[in-house]
């Protein structure tokens, strides 16, 4: 089995810290955190520019709040806890979907009460009109007479009209809701399950097709594909930002990983050499070079690379342990 496919997710997790050992890890590097952040902040209001979501706003406060939400996600808080954190500070106002409670009853129930009232009013009105047409035709006012008379002639139509309206209004409402609403939200089990990474990634991909110059977006999408074990899609995403990749050895490393994972070993080798020329001291790239050598069956070479990488990471760290495991594996293959 392909070494890259096997260790792909591990590489991503281990290497994102490998590559940035020594400096603060940029927060945008973990695509799953980013997708969750997006899903959460999509439903929160930016308090400065109130018609924008927290996800869309570029205001300073929105950025601070996104940073805060990111910290909470990384601290392992659930979506519910994160939303509670914000509500306890800013009130229900931060929610685009206000919760159902005593102060919001009118908001939630009002439209239905109005609708019911309207229907009842309509029934009463139509009934009365048809009855009047029968009984007190003579004392109806002349102006209303003209309205009343047709009802007398075709009395059954009035009833049918009511029934038709009664059927059409809720049916129409339901159809419109299915078309423009979010029926999945009605199911509490599904609503609670949180954002589906597949859906989030698909949404990100669609956004990028509309706005293809967003290099950071492509980078994020590609990393998400790598985590989801879709290296071929990751390669496609990376291909959109080749000029960026050429300047950035870390990105090159990711690209190599995607190429190798999708089976393009020749491409991976070309790019790893470019990356080594650009930054010979980057532990992630050296580690990947070892992976490529391992993949070719050149175990001594792999061990050489990995031992070099081992010197560049912090001793006894998770990364170091992971590299040592790989070295041990390569050594066992030589024997």
């Amino acid at each position, binding site marked *: 089995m392909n070494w890259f496919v096997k260790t792909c997710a591990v590489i991503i997790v281990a290497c994102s810290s490998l590559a940035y050992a020594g400096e603060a890890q940029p927060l945008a590097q973990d695509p799953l955190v980013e997708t969750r952040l997006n899903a959460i902040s999509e439903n929160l209001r930016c308090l400065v520019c109130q018609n924008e979501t927290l996800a869309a706003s570029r205001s300073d406060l929105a950025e*601070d709040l996104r940073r*805060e939400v990111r910290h909470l996600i990384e601290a392992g808080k659930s979506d519910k806890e994160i939303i509670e954190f914000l*509500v306890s*500070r*800013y009130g229900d*106002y931060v929610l685009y979907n206000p919760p159902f409670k005593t102060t919001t009853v009118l908001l939630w129930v009002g439209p239905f009460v109005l609708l019911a009232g309207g229907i009842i009013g309509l029934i009463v009105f139509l009934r009365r009109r048809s009855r009047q047409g029968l009984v007190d035709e003579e004392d109806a006012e002349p102006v209303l007479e003209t309205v009343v008379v047709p009802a007398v002639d075709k009395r059954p139509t009035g009833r049918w009209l009511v029934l038709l309206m009664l059927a059409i209004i809720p049916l129409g409402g339901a159809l419109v809701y299915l078309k423009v609403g979010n029926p999945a939200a009605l199911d509490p089990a599904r609503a609670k399950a949180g954002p589906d990474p597949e859906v989030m990634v698909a949404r990100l991909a669609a956004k990028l097709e509309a706005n293809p110059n967003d290099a950071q977006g492509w980078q994020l999408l590609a990393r998400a594909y790598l985590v989801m074990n879709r290296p071929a899609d990751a390669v496609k995403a990376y291909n959109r930002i080749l000029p960026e990749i050429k300047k950035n050895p870390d990105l090159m490393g990711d690209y190599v990983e995607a190429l190798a994972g999708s089976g393009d070993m020749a491409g991976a080798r070309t790019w790893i050499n470019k990356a080594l020329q650009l930054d010979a001291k980057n532990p992630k790239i050296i580690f990947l070079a070892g992976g490529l050598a391992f993949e070719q069956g050149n175990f001594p070479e792999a061990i050489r690379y990995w031992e070099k990488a081992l010197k560049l990471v912090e001793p006894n760290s998770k990364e170091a342990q992971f590299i040592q495991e790989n070295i041990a594996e390569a050594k066992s293959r030589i024997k």
Partner: protein
Amino acid sequence: MKRFWWFLIPLLAFAVLVFFLARGLTKDPGYVPSPLVGKPAPTFDLPQLQNPKLTFAPEDLKGRVWLLNVWASWCVSCRAEHPVLIDFARSHPDIPLIGLDYKDQRPDALNWLKQHGNPYVLSAFDADGRVGIDYGVYGVPETYVIDQAGVIRYKHVGPLTPEVVQTLIDPLLKGLTP
């Protein structure tokens, strides 16, 4: 005649609608009611602006009624509010006025106080705005009245004006201090 009353119903409904819409127009859409009023003031421990070696925590003022005013040197409305705070500090020597310098640069903030006068007993320095988030700050300036038990009794968003001090803060302070 009875029919006539029926026609009044839509008219009445319309009047109710107009009433609520008209009321809505008089409200400030930027005002966000704070869930923190009536709750203990969030705790923090921040370095002081003038003396970074010293810190300030709300617990330091337990047992006293005090004001926390969120400000910043980059905040234009704070400049408008400033004379009101200077007046307040002068006329309320028994109420500590504490500043929370929000997302500011230390030299800028110190310069600002030098230029405009310093109404604060001290200012806590919230460089990255995290304490601001705990206090639900979304627009500087904001002012909190905190009682002896450390509970937030009132939050004012936007610059304090002499009217706000006279009609809202003074009566509240009178009620809180024996």
